[in-house]
């Protein structure tokens, strides 16, 4: 079965071309988003998941937003939002943001520098527990020389200081919230009916059912083309897709391979590609699962890790699980990140080479079942996989078969997602099929693959440690010009690939599902919702639900 047939590809490309020319849209229509999860909160500092981010970033504007190139160094490509312009001090330790005088909160009050200052206080107050507080660790304070100027003072210069600030900090309405103690903000009723500054205003929220936003008629950036956005929530994956396929919804963030195969032939629903940041891998536990002070009896050996990597035909795994909806991963990064390098040299699939390497390490095939052993010890390990991910389960089964052909006995341990996280966190596994959603910033690689230490390696559950990798990543993150950053990351990535702390499995191609009545621009890979204010619905294809315009109540 080919999910991405030439015909479907042609339709998708035509639609993409049509989308890019769809500016002459008439206002109106309500976008219905079929969502598999609800926003956990509408209070920006506490949002963790993508759904919460989508809603809060439609409600609240940032000072500036990352550009289509997803550059995270300096301020190149960043687009003004609440701040119409900004100036750097000569020593780069201060940035003065000049707020757009037209910007208003949804209750009509002007957005001021005090709102930026207040937001910084909230974000950094441990009583609030903002999820991304660490991203603002290099900021010392924010001063407000006048009502429309917020001066951000940094403790130190870092290449990503601008990105870290504007990507994380969302100004909050001080005039409504400052009277509340910070510790009460978690559960304050105001958080359930937020007043933002963004292109859409809050209308209603029935948790786990639907969340409704309406166009902000007085938005300083111009009224959104759409009249409103409704997030329709369903827990079951099949239901989420069925809503789009039945026409009840207009948009689905990510089509699964199964959904893709069900796209109707009449073109009512189409797929639109946009790069994602996900990649998956088989992570080896370098330390003994029972005693972290010792190396793992198998995976502490670099040569064995490389031999096992060589035994895996990743292209076949990817094709079998995703058809054409994913491609083999290259290393500890996503191709969508600006530091990605597709010219790196991976460990090739080589059955004979793997067999030779295993033989040379003393792992020889025994009679009978053909499995390998050394000094009476079988070459066997357990592969942990989360039950919540069908694709990772399928990949685990295929890997098991490929390892068996190489004489390696693999037992799949399929566990509930919470149990998976718990065991991963404790390092209680031999190897696991892991996956991450990276961000535009390559900084996350330090948490995921850096040596465990304060400020790094927090998510390095395989406890791999490589000094050369750490040094290159540190150098990359300290470099201020993009060429140097790229060069250091290239070196770090190559080190990781060569040392094989993981088998880099696949990167899914992300396809959003769209009803044909919907016209979008290019969808930003890190935040599909970033351009929703300019999306439109064909007037000829409007439905009764579009005429029932969402209005604030």
């Amino acid at each position, binding site marked *: 079965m080919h999910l991405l047939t030439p015909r479907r590809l042609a339709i998708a490309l035509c639609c993409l071309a049509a989308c890019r020319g769809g500016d002459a849209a008439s206002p109106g229509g*309500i976008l*219905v988003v079929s969502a598999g999860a609800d926003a*956990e*909160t509408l*209070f920006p500092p*506490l949002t*963790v*998941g993508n759904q919460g981010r989508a809603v809060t970033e439609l409600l609240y504007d940032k000072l500036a937003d990352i550009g289509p190139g997803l550059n995270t160094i300096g301020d190149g490509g960043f687009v003004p939002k609440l701040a119409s312009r900004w100036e750097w001090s000569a020593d780069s330790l201060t940035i003065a943001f000049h707020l757009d005088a037209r910007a208003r909160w949804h209750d009509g009050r002007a957005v001021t520098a005090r709102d930026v200052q207040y937001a910084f206080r909230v974000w950094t107050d*441990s009583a609030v*527990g*903002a*999820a*991304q*507080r*660490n991203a603002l660790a290099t900021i010392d304070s924010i001063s407000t020389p006048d009502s429309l100027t917020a001066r951000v003072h940094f403790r130190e210069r870092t290449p990503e200081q601008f990105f870290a600030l504007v990507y994380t900090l969302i100004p909050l309405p001080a005039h409504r919230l400052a009277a509340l103690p910070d510790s009460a903000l*978690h*559960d304050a009723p105001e*958080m359930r009916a937020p007043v933002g500054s963004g292109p859409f205003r809050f*209308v*209603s929220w*029935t*948790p*786990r*059912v*639907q969340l*409704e936003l309406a166009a902000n008629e007085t938005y300083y950036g111009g009224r959104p083309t759409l009249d409103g956005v*409704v997030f*329709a*929530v*369903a*827990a*079951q994956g*099949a*239901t989420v897709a*069925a*809503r789009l*396929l*039945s*026409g*009840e*919804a207009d948009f689905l963030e990510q089509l699964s391979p199964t959904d893709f195969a069900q796209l109707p032939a009449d073109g009512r629903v189409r797929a639109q590609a946009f790069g994602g940041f996900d990649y998956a891998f088989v992570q080896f536990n370098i330390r003994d699962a029972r005693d972290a002070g010792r190396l793992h009896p198998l995976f502490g050996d670099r040569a064995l890790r490389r031999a096992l990597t060589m035994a895996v035909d990743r292209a076949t795994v990817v094709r079998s699980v995703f058809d054409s909806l994913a491609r083999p991963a290259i290393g500890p990064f996503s191709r969508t990140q600006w530091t990605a390098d597709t010219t790196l040299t991976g460990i090739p699939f080589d059955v004979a080479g793997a067999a030779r390497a295993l033989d040379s390490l003393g792992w020889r095939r025994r009679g009978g079942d053909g499995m390998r052993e050394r000094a009476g010890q079988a070459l066997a390990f357990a592969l942990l996989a989360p039950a919540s991910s069908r694709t990772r389960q399928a990949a685990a089964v295929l890997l098991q078969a490929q390892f068996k052909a190489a004489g390696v006995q693999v037992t799949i341990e399929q566990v509930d*997602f*919470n*149990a998976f*996280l*718990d*065991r*991963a*966190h404790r390092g209680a596994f031999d190897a696991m099929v892991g996956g*991450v959603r990276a961000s535009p910033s390559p900084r*996350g690689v330090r*948490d995921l693959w850096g040596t465990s230490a304060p400020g790094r390696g*927090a*998510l390095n559950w395989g406890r791999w440690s490589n000094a050369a990798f750490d040094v290159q990543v540190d150098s990359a993150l300290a470099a201020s010009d993009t060429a140097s950053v790229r060069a250091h990351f290239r070196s770090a990535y190559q080190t990781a690939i060569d040392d094989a702390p993981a088998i880099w499995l696949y990167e899914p191609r992300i396809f959003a599902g769209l009803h044909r009545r919907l016209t979008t621009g290019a969808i930003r890979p890190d935040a599909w919702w970033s351009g929703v204010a300019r999306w439109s619905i064909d007037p000829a294809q409007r439905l009764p*639900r579009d005429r*029932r*315009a*969402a*209005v604030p*109540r």
Partner: protein
Amino acid sequence: MTRRIVVRLLQAAAVLAVVATAVFVLLQFAPGDPFAAALDGTNVPPSVRMEWRARYGFDLPPAERFVRWIGALAHGELGYAASRHRPVADVVADAVPRTLLLVGVALALGFAAGILVGLVQARHHRRWPDRLLGALTLGGVAMPEFLLGLLAMTWLGARWRLFPVAGIASLGDTATWPAWERALDLLWHLALPAVVLAVGVAARVARHQRAALLGVLGEDYIRTARAKGLGEWRVLWHHALPNAIGPVLALLGLALPSLIGGAVLIERIFGWPGMGLTLFDALLARDYPLVLAAVLLATVVAVVARALTDVVAESVAPRRARIP
């Protein structure tokens, strides 16, 4: 009667205490907590996770948490649903009426249809309608609810678009609609999940009703009624059914807890935001206070349903109910 009620209440309290303790202990063996489910695997710093855990008491030893939870429960407080950023009582207050509506409608539909089918089968005993309906009810008993739900959602919802795929109301600003239009909209959304839930109930009730009717159709008073020249339907409806309905009504007490169990999956499939979906979400999120509240409520419903069934059975057939 008073003594029976007091005994029933004491039994119910004991059941609740055992269930609460058992569920709490079992949950301690499950890995994770609301913050592990939400934050582990993200780049949220460990210090923030600790702050969140401390805020809601998840850093305390299980025994202390249990004592605190029981103490709060005694004061009518169900705790805080960290995964929803709301008090458990608020979450439950939203969800319970929706589940009661779904289960109530399914129960009414299931019993009405089941009794009717049982009557038709008894009327046409050993003829083709009886055999056909017998096969269908067997299928209804055997068919898993989630499978039927997925089939109904896929075909009647997504493909033929006869019913909404999910939710409890049409999308958009339904709050401005007239009340009757909103009620119709609610019924339209309720139709698929309620019918799917009702199918299993109807099948079981029909089989019991058929057997009970056949059991009384050989009685003397039925023969007398027929000898008086009454039509067969009249005999069935006025003479046989009142004497054969008791055992079927006793099924109510059994059907309600199983329907609530079935509602967990059906609510998930149809996006019906009741207690079933709440429980499912809470389990995935390891939101223990919410799980405990949901399980306790389900237990209360089961206990009350059982007590009501006894009362109904006694009022329908007093002599039968008094048999020890």
